[in-house]
Each structure stands twice: as structure tokens, then as C-alpha cells.
């Protein structure tokens, strides 16, 4: 197995346009382990494809360094090796199949560029192997125009894996497939990566894809890395409000307000809503002497109770039955609050309890407050 470690050191990229300089990536630091399935997650336009292009050797960095294993492959001073020297392959956001070649021609194309071109027989065998792995071996003599979206996507992956690259880069390869096919391909991809053991960097703006595929996830916004970690780490302890909102569906509920102390208990007054913080949280929060905070709590961590001490009460505005569970929406000045519960709610208001272990607190800068 030839898995490669990738080290990214304060990598930056700016484009000079006639409207001025655009800083697309600002000092990215990352280490990607050999054989890792690493996911880059971020909203549209945050610079994911740009970072991928830098890794691929299709763009030159404007600052910082890039190492494959111990070898420097690009810096801003002059060292630069192209995509082929880096031995990477890439699946493009737009597939980028060669329309005038058959599926076989497309998958074989990287092999024809090797320093020692394999004999036609070897080449055919390799193409066949990759195609079989992806279940497209019956399509080999078709042209891309005669394929469905999912088939094209698999051809693009076949082209990327056929010559056993050191690193495989994927730019939103599933973004244009329908939901069912996407789920199927997701599982398929994960399995494939495990089999091949190749270091893979996968770009997506779909948090579900990131959570299910990645060994580790890096979340980006506006060209800045926000948080790097395993899906569980990021889900449990988002480092700031942006990450908290980006990961998880439905989105985490966020309420901003002032802290007040009454009768020894700590309350968060979010406009009209008064929330009593759990005693444990209150104890840890008091010494910090904060005035204004944002409370984040995931929909499944708002517990509907019928008796006992409640932390907050909400009016019920909309109920959605999504199969195994119910989503209850309550409209609030700061946006809607969603509660996720297995039982159908009764009445037009909810009594809710909070669990100190599943609260996320953020300061007025949006950064996480660790208790």
C-alpha cells in the first residue's frame, strides 16, 4: 500500500483580478494521515475547490508550503511540481469526462501517459479491473453522452483509481445525483476507499456526506479553517457558532440573550423567552461573569416532559411527522426552535427540560465557552 501523508503549512492563495486582490485561502494548516478519508466541508464559495486545486498542482500557492510525505511539492517561492509528479488523481465537480472517447478510453487515458506505457493487454486488464470494481464493465464501449449521471460519475472515479495514485482528490463527486443514488454511491465510495487504502481528500458542502464518509472532517468558512476533528468530536463540541450551525440536521437551536441571577438560579433571557439553566451549568458559568451568551442545543436534546422541573416552555406552532419521530416547530423572534421527539406531542405548548451535558454555550464573539 502506498499511502501518503500530506502536510499543509500556512497555505494561502489569492487571485489578482482587475477588481483587485481576492484572498481566497488564508493560512491553512493541516495534516492528513496516510490512508485517511479526509473530508473538507464548507459552504459554497468558501475555497474548497481552490484548496483542492492547490493540492492537485493545478494552481500555485501565494504563500505557505505543501509536503507529500517528506517531500516539498509546492511553496510560494518557486518550488512547484505538477499534478503528475505528485502522483495524484482527481474526480472533478463536473466529472470532466472526455466526450470523444469511450468509457474504456476515458479510464485508460491516465495509463497512456505513464512513463512506461503498459502493453495493450495489461492496460485492458487494469481498465477491466477498475470497471468491475465500480460495476460499469458492461459500459466500456459507450461514449459519455450515452451514460446516466451515476454512470458518468463512476467512470470519473474509475479514471481516478486506475493507476493507483498516491492521493485521490474528489470535488463534490455526488452533488448532482438524486438522493437515492447518492446514498448508494456514498456507501460504495466508503467501501472502495477502505479497499484501496489511498489517502483521499473529499470536498463537499453536504454535512451528512461529511459525517458519514470522513475519518476526519475539516470545516472551512471564507477561506479559514474553523475546526478539524472526527465527526463525533465536531458534532459533540463544535468550536464556534458557525460550525455548530453547519453540522447536524435539523440545525442546532440558538438563543442569544442576557444572563440574570434570580433566587440563586441563572436565567437566560432571550427576548420573550426565559430559560432556566441547569444547576450544574449555572455553577460553572457564574465565576466567568459573562453578561451576554448564546445557548445552543440540538433538537434531540430538548426533552419533552410532563412532570418535574422544566427549564423552558414553548408554544407549538407546527408539527411534522417524519416517520419514526416528530419535529415540532416553535416560532421565536430569533428564528424557529425545533424539538425532535419520538412521541406525538399533546396540547399547544411544550414543557422542556435541558441536560447540562448537551448544552453548547458561545460567547458574544461566537466562540465556544468550555465549562
Amino acid at each position, binding site marked *: 500500500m502506498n499511502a501518503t501523508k500530506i502536510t499543509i503549512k500556512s497555505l494561502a492563495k489569492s487571485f489578482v483580478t482587475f477588481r483587485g486582490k481576492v484572498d481566497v485561502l488564508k493560512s491553512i494548516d493541516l495534516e492528513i494521515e496516510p490512508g485517511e478519508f479526509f473530508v473538507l466541508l464548507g459552504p459554497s464559495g468558501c475555497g474548497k475547490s481552490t484548496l483542492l486545486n492547490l493540492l492537485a498542482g*493545478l494552481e500555485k500557492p501565494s504563500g505557505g508550503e505543501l509536503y507529500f510525505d517528506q517531500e516539498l511539492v509546492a511553496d510560494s517561492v518557486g518550488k512547484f511540481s505538477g499534478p503528475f509528479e505528485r502522483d495524484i488523481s482527481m474526480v472533478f465537480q463536473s466529472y470532466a469526462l472526455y466526450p470523444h472517447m469511450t468509457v474504456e478510453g476515458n479510464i485508460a487515458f*491516465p495509463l497512456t501517459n505513464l512513463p512506461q506505457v503498459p502493453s495493450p493487454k495489461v492496460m485492458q486488464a487494469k481498465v477491466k479491473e477498475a470497471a468491475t470494481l465500480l460495476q460499469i464493465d458492461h459500459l466500456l464501449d459507450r461514449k459519455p453522452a450515452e451514460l446516466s449521471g451515476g454512470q458518468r460519475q463512476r467512470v470519473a472515479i474509475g479514471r481516478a483509481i486506475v493507476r493507483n495514485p498516491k492521493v485521490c482528490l474528489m470535488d463534490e463527486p455526488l452533488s448532482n445525483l438524486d438522493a437515492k443514488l447518492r446514498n448508494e454511491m456514498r456507501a460504495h465510495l466508503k467501501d472502495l476507499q477502505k479497499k484501496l487504502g489511498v489517502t483521499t481528500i473529499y470536498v463537499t458542502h453536504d454535512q451528512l456526506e461529511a459525517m458519514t464518509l470522513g475519518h476526519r472532517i475539516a470545516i472551512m468558512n471564507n477561506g479559514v479553517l474553523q475546526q478539524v476533528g472526527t465527526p463525533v468530536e465536531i458534532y459533540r463540541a463544535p468550536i464556534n457558532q458557525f460550525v455548530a450551525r453547519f453540522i447536524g440536521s435539523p440545525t442546532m437551536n440558538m438563543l442569544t440573550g442576557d444572563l440574570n441571577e434570580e433566587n440563586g438560579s441563572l436565567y437566560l433571557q432571550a427576548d420573550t423567552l426565559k430559560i432556566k439553566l441547569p444547576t450544574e451549568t449555572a455553577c460553572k458559568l457564574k465565576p466567568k461573569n459573562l453578561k451576554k451568551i448564546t445557548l445552543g442545543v440540538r433538537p434531540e436534546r430538548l426533552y419533552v416532559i410532563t412532570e418535574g422541573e422544566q427549564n423552558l416552555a414553548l408554544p407549538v406552532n407546527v408539527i411534522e411527522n417524519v416517520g419514526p419521530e416528530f419535529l415540532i416547530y416553535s416560532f421565536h423572534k430569533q428564528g424557529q426552535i425545533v424539538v425532535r421527539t419520538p412521541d406525538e406531542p399533546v396540547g399547544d405548548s411544550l414543557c422542556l427540560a435541558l441536560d447540562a451535558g448537551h448544552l453548547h454555550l458561545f460567547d458574544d464573539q461566537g466562540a465556544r465557552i468550555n465549562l
Partner: protein
Amino acid sequence: MTREEIIRSCLIFATGLFLLAFTLGPFIWMIWISLADRADFLVTGQVEYSLSNYRQVLTAHSLHFLDYLSNSLWISTITAIIVTLFSSMAAYAVSRMRFPGRSVVPLLILAMSMFPQISIVGYLFEMFSKAGLINSHMALILPYIAWTIPIALWINMSYFTQIPLDLDKAALVDGASRMKVLYKIIFPLALPGIFSSALLVFIACFNEFLFAIMLTIDYTAQTLPVGIALFQGLHGEIPWGNLMAASAIASVPLVILTLIFQRYIVAGLMGGAVKG
């Protein structure tokens, strides 16, 4: 069929018929005259049809028809090849690479083609006289290249910009050199554009008259349009039959070329490159 549909198809049919008559009419007349033994047959009503005009044009040395034809073919072919080569590479560069002035260069080139031919032909004559090029193939090939490159560049550019940039990147990632990307991926996909520009350049050169008449002197370099225009009858009269026969033959290469090339000038070659 509804009333509307009937009117519609009538109008389409009538327009088509008119256009056909308009374009083919002169051509048919040309063939007709070339087959008749005298040009005034419509007035006098006395006529005999034969191929004698064609025979004369092809065999009479004094007419130099074959010289003109070979000059034309050589000059047009060489120009078309050179122009296609340069314009397609330029189009690749302009559509793919980031370099200063990349949006200005095509406009400048287009601007140059706006000078009327007549305004530069005098200077060209002087320049080529000094260089001793007058009455050579070069005297026509050089100006033809300059004259047709803008249109070829713009046609090619419109085709090249339709090819997604991701295809270049994919090929580079797959290990192809820039040159290989060009001839394995980009050129095959831009083929319809390259062929149509080549064909247009060829036709333009084949039909060009002004440069040809000013910069050449005799049959060693004169092209068909000039040669045919200068046909002289024995007694100074205009030999309409010969003229028309020569014109008919001259159109054969163009018809053949168009038939060959039009197979390649098909749209839809790009299907399947990207999502959707």
C-alpha cells in the same frame, strides 16, 4: 392541420423555394451557357449544345486555365493550413491561459481586419516589389494569411471557449503534457470549429480578386478569378462560353471540399463532458 399550420408551411415552402432559386439560378444559367455554342442563344433561338467549351478551357494552352487552377489550389491550401494552425493555437491560448492582454489581443486582431483591402494594396505592391515577390505565390499567400487570420481566430475562439476548462485540468492531472492535452483532447473536440474556419479561409482565398489582380502579373501566379476575368476571345470579344465553362469547373473543388468537410462540421460533439 389547422389553418395556421397550413399558412405556416406554405410560407416556409415559398421562402425556401425563393432562396433556392436565388442561389441556384445564376449557377444553372452559368452551366446552361457553358454548354451552348453561343451566348446569345436566348435572343436568336439558334443553339447547339456540346461540351466543346469545357474541352477548350481544359486543353487550350493559350487560356492557361490549368495554371490558374493549380495556382489557386496551392495558394488557398497553403494559406488555409497555415492560418488554421496559427489561429487554433492562438485560440487555445486566449481561451485557456492567463496572460496580460488576453482580452485585448483578439480585439486588436479583429480591428486590423477592418482596414479595407484597397487601402493597403498599394503599399503591399511597393513592399513586395522591393522584396522581389511580385508575381509569386508568396505575394498572395502572405497577405491572405494576414487577411483571414482574424476571422479564423474568432471562429476558433468561439469553439474553444465552449470546451470546459475542467477537461484540460483533468487531462493534466491524468498526466498528459500541455501539447498532448492540445492534440488528444482539445483539438478533437474543437474539430468542427477548426474545419469550418479552414473551409472559410480556403473559400475566401479561392475567390479573392483584388490582391490577386494587383500583386500578380501573369499565369505563373495569377489565380482563377483573375485568370477567368482576363479571358480574351480571338478578336477581342468576350468568350462567354469559355468563361462560363471555366467558372463551372472552378466551383468543383469548393463543392467537393464542402461535401467532405460538412460531415465533420456537426454540432453535438461535446455531449457528456460534464454533468447534466
